[in-house]
């Protein structure tokens, strides 16, 4: 079967292992395409995509936009900061107005968890969730798992530790779903205040000591401390966080084994990850960015083709 089971990509929770594998196989082909002298294919030439961002983003938005351009789709960009949302327009009205201009697909980031799911019930266009609050960020999880698969050959049976601010992270939740569906073992690690209660019920291991987590894992996916979402103090100071949970080259060298370091960006250098670790040969952070374009091309291609 070479068709996704869903019309939208709302979250990893809603899709199957077969869907993920189909996206990966297609992404491999697109990775070859974006390394050609001419990086553009005409597949989505008659498709118009709106990038609707109610929350700031650099990497994800650039990556989506590049993926759309490489597929020859027409794109329009919308950001909430300079729009009628400020004048009190509702989400559904905003999106319906965009769709009235004959748009086929919506890529949306929103601060409210479930916003794309709500939209999917009310509109006909395909929706790709580019991050909904602290809930899911499916394309990030797909590109993370794709990068692990590329680096280590497969995801099944591998041990992946997600380290840092799990509580506020949509990347963590999507990663847990994706990695578990692909047969990996997942551990979360961070200060107790930044771990959600009952996270263990998702079938992940919980570790408070970062050294033990690193010793256990094959891959460490280090997350950013999301200061913009922390309205109260979860730890005394950034310096103290960095002291207990920061990962640096010295710590990695002391493990006496090779592990892979990942980070979804943007990095707070010197907080969760030191420069010597982020730029070391352990790190596949820039591969993640390259794979992001290929994976998003695959998602858009497979969703648009099902229309």
């Amino acid at each position, binding site marked *: *079967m*070479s*068709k996704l089971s869903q019309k939208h990509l709302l979250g990893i929770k809603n899709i199957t292992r077969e869907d993920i594998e189909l996206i990966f*196989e*297609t992404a*491999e*082909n*697109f990775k*070859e*395409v974006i390394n*050609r*002298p*001419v*990086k*553009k*294919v*005409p*597949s*989505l030439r*008659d*498709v118009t995509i709106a990038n609707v961002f109610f929350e700031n983003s650099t990497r994800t938005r650039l990556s989506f936009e590049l993926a759309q351009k490489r597929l020859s789709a027409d794109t329009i960009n919308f950001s909430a900061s300079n729009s009628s949302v400020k004048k009190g327009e509702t989400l559904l009205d905003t999106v319906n107005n965009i769709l009235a201009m004959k748009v086929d697909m919506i890529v949306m980031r929103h601060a409210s968890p479930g916003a794309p799911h709500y939209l999917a019930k009310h509109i006909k266009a395909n929706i790709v969730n580019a991050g909904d609050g602290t809930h899911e960020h499916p394309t990030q999880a797909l590109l993370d798992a794709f990068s692990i698969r590329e680096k280590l050959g497969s995801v099944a049976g591998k041990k992946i530790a997600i380290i840092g601010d799990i509580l506020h992270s949509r990347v963590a939740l999507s990663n847990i779903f994706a990695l578990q569906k692909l047969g990996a073992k997942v551990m979360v690690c961070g200060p107790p205040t930044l771990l959600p209660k009952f996270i263990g019920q998702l079938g992940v291991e919980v570790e408070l000591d970062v050294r033990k987590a690193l010793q256990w894992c094959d891959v460490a996916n280090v997350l950013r401390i999301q200061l913009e979402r922390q309205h109260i103090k979860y730890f005394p100071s950034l310096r103290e966080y960095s002291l207990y949970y920061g990962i640096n080259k010295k710590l990695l060298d002391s493990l006496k084994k090779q592990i892979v370091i990942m980070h979804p960006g943007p990095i707070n250098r010197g907080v969760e990850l030191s420069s010597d670790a982020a730029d070391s040969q352990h790190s596949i952070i820039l591969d993640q960015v390259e794979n992001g374009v290929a994976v998003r091309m695959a998602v858009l*291609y*497979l969703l*648009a*083709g*099902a*229309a």
Partner: protein
Amino acid sequence: MQKKLILDTDLLDITISRLCQELVENHGDFSETVIIGMQPRGILVANIIHQKLEKLTKKDIPLGYLDATFHRDDFRRREIPAKANETKIEFAIEGRHVVLVDDVLFTGRTIRAALDTMITFGRPKKVELLVLIDRKYTRELPIAADYVGKSVNTLTSQRVLVELEAQGHKQNKIWLINKD
């Protein structure tokens, strides 16, 4: 379902040998020539021809695989998105003579897509098309093959089935199938 044999094992072998001789006739020492097989089944034919040619000429001839899925013109007109295969061209095609190889030439649309895909890798000096089976009177585009294994009169409703050892079949055979 009716099945009619178009080419049996021995005849297919002779046909492929003849195609190779024709290529040698036109390409001399193959110093400028590269062979590109079309995914998914043309690559199997390209593999056989490439092997025979290297034996005949005692030269290394570059061989690549091309997938034209992303350049097809029927995207969003199909029930499910077309599934892509690997493209592997590890040499420059700029200024070279390309021999494009496929199993069956039918509507010509795949070849149209393949030509577009090829241009994204550079500008070949010349492109030729080799097919095992040329289905006559079914073309939807002005495309013709330069080297033809066998021309066959077919109806649009019929299908040409290529069975090759490389796909796990016992013998190389080509069939014409009536769909009913």
